């Protein structure tokens, strides 16, 4: 629980317990008597069983609370770069031909994506770690074909194991006694996708270790290094159990009843899978595991999504408060299924969802198998163009997102932030959960209603904001009414920030590796701005040994400076150049700049604000330092002349 009030100060309370609990929030209006007047809000916490640890976080700033919470539960794992790109999922891409077809369509329509997902139907009768040999006869070859384009694949692995004596995993788990037991001590038998199933007892470190070993290339036949994992149904879901889960009197290792550990089960499963992928890669490859179940600490093991949503405008709207809340509780690598899992989104909803979803930390399109196909090219040329543009927006911002993920990895401060986290004194932001901040530099306002082409956007603070599409300046501290045409949802860069971009569109993030950077410098009223850029190899754990670049860019007194903020032992070199610097809000019209230490002059001219994209948004011309020729891993200054 995080509280934040009119004083602009925050505090937090953390109740650590894994049993069923109830929290009464005795806020105004909770019953007839409570009435208003008292600024105090009481809460009442109850847990059914188990041990309770409680923690108070004193703040005082919102970010302090989150940092303090992260110091207890951990910060979020540094994702691989590919995982921050776009993910294409569906229940189900049916066979290898289907996979190849979908993959090639992305290329045909010049839409980048990084990961193609396979849901439960890829298995042989819902036996995880197997492949339906009729539909996926050559899984390795299939993955390699994607990998050549820098694309990965994700398959689903759930904790329920089909009770089939000829299934190697069931046999082994039975023999080893690795299943959760029912109250009579027999292996618990519940119903899930495969039918009669048993559940691996993830509470035991020994069993987790064994589970992790299932992901080795040898054990997971048909897997390759470009295959990652999706953990679903890990609450655990038991279709014929009470509340669709495991009976409370089921027994875990050491005779612990399920009621005491229920909420942690999925977390341990996520942990075991994630650790398994680390083992598989011999500690050299960051794992990627998406989980549905969460618990404090989940952030250390991978991404999560908000579960099975529906193709309705309201579900698009509510995705933002959901993700903001998750971020406040440490879990920043999260997203909602683009388009809505159940039902068929009308094209307008789908387009708006892509436009909002492009800013979700975890950006995945997904759909139920009863729905119509909805890959971005299926709704006519115009809609394809709009969705492509939304996805491109995400890809241009990948360096910024990656830098923010690093910030979350170090401090626990989430990528997606409620406005009040950045503007804790501004009461107008407290209840605003339709707009959100991406880092400290971008404010995004979703469009959540059908047929809307206008939006009212509250832009907080005293400094100005620059429209991401056309560079137009808006003053802070007031509500602006503005166009929200089908091309875009309102999004703004905060004056005083510098945002790194990569403007070349590729098939996937992999091919963007060597592409040059663009810096967008949005100057505040004192003609100053600053920002950061974090770069590492995007995949290994070498960053933990200092193999990364962390730069700080400061614009002040007409000089843009790049300085190293990584510790001295940090070392990574990059050939990448910064080939374009855009100045927003510069007071004069300079026409050249001096680059040091190269001692070279660079031209300043009017250039496009946004490369490519929709014609309507690329017409704007802004002050651009052309080809300063500076490297991203070095110190330099650029003086505006």
């Amino acid at each position: 629980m995080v509280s934040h009030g009119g004083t602009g100060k925050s505090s937090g309370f953390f109740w650590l317990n894994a049993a069923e609990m109830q929290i009464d929030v005795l806020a105004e209006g909770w019953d007839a008597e409570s009435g208003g007047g008292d600024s105090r809000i009481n809460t009442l916490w109850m847990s059914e069983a188990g041990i309770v640890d409680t923690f108070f976080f004193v703040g005082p700033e919102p970010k302090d609370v989150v940092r303090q919470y992260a110091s207890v539960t951990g910060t979020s794992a540094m994702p691989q770069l590919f995982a921050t790109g776009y993910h294409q999922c569906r229940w189900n891409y049916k066979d290898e031909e289907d996979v190849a077809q979908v993959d090639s369509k992305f290329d045909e329509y010049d839409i980048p994506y990084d990961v193609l997902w396979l849901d439960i139907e890829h298995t042989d009768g819902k036996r995880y770690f197997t492949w339906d040999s009729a539909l996926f006869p050559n899984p390795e070859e299939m993955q390699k074909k994607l990998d050549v384009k820098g694309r990965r694949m994700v398959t689903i692995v759930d904790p329920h194991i089909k009770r089939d004596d000829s299934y190697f995993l069931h046999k082994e788990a039975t023999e080893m006694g690795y299943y959760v037991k029912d109250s009579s001590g027999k292996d618990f038998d519940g119903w899930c996708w495969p039918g009669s199933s048993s559940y691996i007892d993830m509470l035991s470190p020994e069993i987790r270790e064994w589970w992790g070993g299932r992901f080795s290339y040898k054990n997971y036949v048909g897997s390759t290094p470009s295959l990652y994992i999706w953990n679903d149904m890990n609450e655990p879901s038991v279709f014929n159990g009470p509340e669709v889960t495991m009976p409370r009197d089921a027994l875990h290792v050491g005779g612990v009843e399920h009621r005491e550990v229920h909420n942690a089960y999925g977390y341990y499963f996520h942990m075991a899978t994630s650790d398994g992928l680390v083992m598989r890669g011999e500690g050299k490859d960051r794992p990627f595991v998406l989980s549905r179940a969460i618990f404090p600490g989940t952030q250390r093991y991978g991404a999560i999504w908000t579960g099975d949503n529906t193709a309705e405008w309201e579900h698009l709207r509510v995705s933002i408060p959901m993700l903001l809340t998750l971020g406040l509780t440490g879990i920043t690598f999260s997203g909602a299924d683009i388009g809505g899992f159940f039902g068929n989104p009308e094209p307008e909803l789908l387009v708006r969802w892509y436009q909002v979803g492009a800013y979700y930390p975890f950006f995945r399109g997904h759909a139920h198998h009863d729905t119509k196909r909805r890959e971005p090219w299926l709704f006519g040329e115009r809609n394809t163009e709009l969705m492509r543009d939304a996805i491109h927006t995400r890809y241009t911002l990948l360096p910024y997102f990656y830098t923010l993920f690093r910030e979350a990895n170090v401090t626990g401060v989430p990528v997606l932030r409620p406005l009040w986290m950045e503007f804790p004194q501004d009461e107008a932001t407290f209840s605003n959960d339709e707009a959100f901040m991406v880092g400290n530099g971008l404010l995004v306002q979703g469009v959540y209603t059908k047929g809307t082409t206008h939006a009212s956007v509250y832009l907080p603070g005293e400094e100005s904001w620059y429209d991401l599409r056309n560079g137009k300046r808006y003053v802070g501290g007031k509500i602006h009414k503005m166009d929200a045409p089908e091309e875009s949802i309102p999004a703004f860069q905060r004056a005083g920030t510098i945002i790194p971009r990569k403007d070349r569109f590729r098939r996937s993030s992999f091919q963007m590796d060597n592409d040059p950077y663009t810096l967008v410098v949005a100057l505040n009223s004192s003609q100053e701005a600053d920002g950061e850029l974090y770069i590492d190899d995007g995949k290994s754990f070498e960053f933990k040994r200092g193999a990364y670049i962390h730069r700080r860019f400061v614009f002040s007194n007409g000089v843009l400076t790049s300085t190293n903020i990584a510790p001295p032992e940090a070392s990574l070199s990059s050939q990448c150049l910064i080939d374009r610097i855009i100045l927003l809000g510069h007071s004069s019209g300079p026409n050249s700049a001096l680059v040091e230490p190269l001692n070279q002059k660079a031209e300043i001219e009017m250039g496009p604000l946004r490369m490519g994209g929709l014609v309507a948004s690329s017409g704007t011309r802004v002050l651009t330092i052309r080809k300063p020729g500076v490297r991203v891993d070095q110190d330099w200054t650029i003086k505006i002349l």
Partner: protein
Amino acid sequence: MRVLLSFLLLLFLVLASSAIRSSSSPVTDPFLGISPQDEKYYKSSSEIKCKDGSKRFTRAQLNDDFCDCADGTDEPGTSACPNGKFHCRNAGHSPLVLFSSRVNDGICDCCDGSDEYDGKVACSNTCWEAGKAARENLKKKIQTYNQGVVIRRKEIEQAKVGLDKDEAELKKLKIEQKILKGLVQQLKDRKEQIEKIEEKERLEKEKEEKERKEAEEAAQPGKGDGEEKTDGNEKVEGSTDGGEMPGVSQDDEILDENEHHDETGRYKDLDTDEESAAEAEPTSVLEEGTHNNPADQHVVETKEESPSSEDLIITAGSQHDGSTKKEESDEVKKVEEDIVSEKKEALSKEELGRLVASRWTGENSDKPSEADDSPKADEHENLEHTPTSPQEVEEDDGFVSDGDEETGDDGKYSDREPEDDTYEEEYRHDSTSSYKSDAEDDLDLSETTSSPTWLEKIQKTVKNILQAVNLFQTTPVDKSEADRVRKEYDESSSKLKKIQSRVSSLEKKLKQDFGPEKEFYSFHGRCFESKQGKYTYKVCAYKEATQEEGYSKTQLGGWEKFENSYQFMTYTNGDKCWNGPDRSLKIKLRCGLKNELMDVDEPSRCEYAAVLSTPARCLEDKLKELQEKLEKLMNQDQPQKHDEL
């Protein structure tokens, strides 16, 4: 030898050039990525305009790896402009235009390798082989078209003949129908006249009889008619049972199939009453159990509370309100809650599992088992469809020729004979499924029609009869004459019916869209089949498309129309899908020498797609286009062509 030599030379050139490229400065050719037609635009002056008119740029800024024009004009040879296009010449093959994003992305896109010049990957020049293969393919395609065009022409001619024949027949039948109608009417009048007289005779006889009887049994009481009512009452009671008696506790009762079946029916009539359910001891029985009774796939609950009919899952009331119904996951949660409150001992756990699973699968609750090879799976798969008797007999259809027939032009699934016979054969075919009785009639009809005098004969007979009967207008009726009239009437009117049905089917046929040149005429009454896995797909033109598995048949759609200038055939409004749309099928038509259905697929749930190759799509224009393309390729590749030969 010469081939090898020039190939080596080429290889050398590629290697040499890539060596130069990797040396550093990215673009060696300032005009890289520009198509030959465009070169003039770039070379004409030292200052070049962005094509969108937004800006000008210098020759030095051309391909300098920095995007000046938002439309990409200044960077045809680099990846700097997202909107740019890169042109690879691909000598030896066809030129290709790429998105700029493909330049130097580490993937060889152009067969000449020109898109990768930063030295990170070495692309070998494959244009030679690729071009050769492409030309071979094109040649093959042209060959198919060449033959296909001939077949198509023949088909068109045959269609003309067939249509003329149909029209002639229709005309003739219409005349016959008119005459026969008149005769039948006359016979009918006569028959009725006779029957009137007969009736009169009968009544008189009866009267006499009655009088005689009445005289015999002077006075007897009338009979009551109340007895039958009891039956009806019972029925009413039975059907209200469930609704009226909420307290009936069947906790420990395990319903047998029959009882259970009854419950299903009853349960539908119940009122929704969520609240009472929370307190009441719920006994919900999730059926699906023994897998014998396909109709019993859903939930049955012996409580008064009841879900909305579409819900299928019973939601017992709980502290939560039901407002989030829309979200299925919530519903599932509700179900969970119910389940807690229920005595799970009374449930089959497996049934419950299947049921909850079905909330996601959207299919039968036993969908998961479909994949697990359990013997039940197949049977249950059919449940969404009309439950035909689940016998295990393999379907043995008449279309065994599946796929391998090599006799060429005639559609391989067509059971039709030479065109002269069309009418009869087709008609028989049409009738097999739904018009069986008519079919036989029509055979008769066709036999009779073959003799031109049959109508005259009938006319004559009728005339004779009528005259004959006329002589006996007074009572009593001559029995044999009356029978003759009746017999003649029956025969004639049944003949008339046959003709009428034939007329209407011909009229219907002639209204169909056979294509601009009637090239699809031969499709009428024909079905095309494709076996894929356990399913047999059967597509009958102008009629319907089905998916068959054993004896279970699912309609994928009724004939809708051709689309996109006859590139597609569409079937719509097929059997309803559980959670999806009505089934539909879209068939892509492409040129082929045989009518052959293939690649049936279901890209989205219950929206099927397939390909049908047919000579009807071997268009002459397209052939010309292909020939021109080939010619261009051959000319363009003159040097290679020389080597090739």
